[in-house]
């Protein structure tokens, strides 16, 4: 549907177009991976660590990431904090309003699985991957700012595996099994 899909298909069909395709992929993945602007969906304590990671001691500006308030300016949504059932439609709408290519990072135990609120609560969503496609999970309650930086660097590796042509996309093998036991 988008112009880029037809362009990629045209490149694949022409002889020698593969070289152009891989070069374009390399350059655009490098550019995207090294300038991941963040949508800070910080609702609770993890937001404090997110803010700390953006300040001078830990500084993710040196990785090319800055927090932006508008979803239309961002590449990554970092869900940092507990998401309640009342908040979930807002998070979903903001995710929909982000333009492609976009990724999602679940920061902290509450965003990964509901955290300490997994049991005995009536109002907390148990893990933001119930309604968002999460790319990187960060464990911790709250995780240290260095963990968030590590997550951004792993996301950069994942971005490097993407491609404008669907047949060339690879999946990045995760280090740990996903919540729920599946391995992707």
């Amino acid at each position: 549907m988008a112009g880029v899909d037809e362009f990629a298909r045209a490149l694949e069909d022409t002889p020698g177009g593969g070289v152009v395709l891989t070069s374009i992929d390399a350059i655009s993945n490098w550019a995207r991976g090294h300038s991941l602007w963040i949508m800070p969906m910080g609702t609770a304590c993890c937001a404090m660590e997110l803010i700390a990671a953006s300040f001078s001691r830990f500084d993710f500006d040196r990785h090319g990431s800055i927090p932006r308030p508008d979803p239309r300016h961002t590449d990554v949504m970092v869900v940092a904090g507990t998401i309640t059932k009342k908040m979930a439609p807002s998070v979903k709408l903001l995710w929909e309003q982000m333009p492609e290519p976009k990724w999602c990072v679940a920061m902290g135990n509450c965003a990964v699985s509901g955290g300490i609120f997994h049991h005995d609560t009536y109002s907390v969503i148990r893990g933001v991957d119930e309604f968002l496609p999460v790319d990187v999970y960060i464990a911790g309650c709250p995780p240290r700012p260095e963990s968030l930086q590590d997550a951004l660097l792993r996301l950069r590796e994942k971005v490097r595996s993407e491609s404008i042509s669907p047949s060339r996309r690879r999946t990045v093998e995760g280090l740990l099994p996903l919540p729920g036991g599946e391995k992707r």
Partner: protein
Amino acid sequence: MVPQVREGGAVLRGLTAPGKGVRVTSADSVWFVVGLAVGPVAFLLLLLGINAVLAPSRPSALKSSPYECGIPQAGSPWCPVNIRFSTVALLFVIFDAEAVLLFAVASRVRGSVVGAAEVAVFTGFLALGLFYAWKKGALKWQA
């Protein structure tokens, strides 16, 4: 030997004849101006072109909805606007054009009494218009 004239640090090489001044019609400066006009436009078109080819544009109704921190939009942003905005804009355009004309004329009439009288007549007509607008209440904010 072609004499070289230094002007402001730059060296002008031009076709000269003995006795005449230097004429600045070298091909280099023409290319410079063309580059200055075309270069930024070409760069912009290159960036937009790359974006048009490579950007994954998949618009949808939800994606284009107005941003209001995740909640559905409350009310429409179209509302009646004070008419004075357009009145002030109109007056500004007229007097701005007058000011430009005055600047253009000023350097020519400097020093001559007849010129000053002509400019005074011109300004007087426009002052009459301003006085009319003033009396009609166009300069007041509240209608």
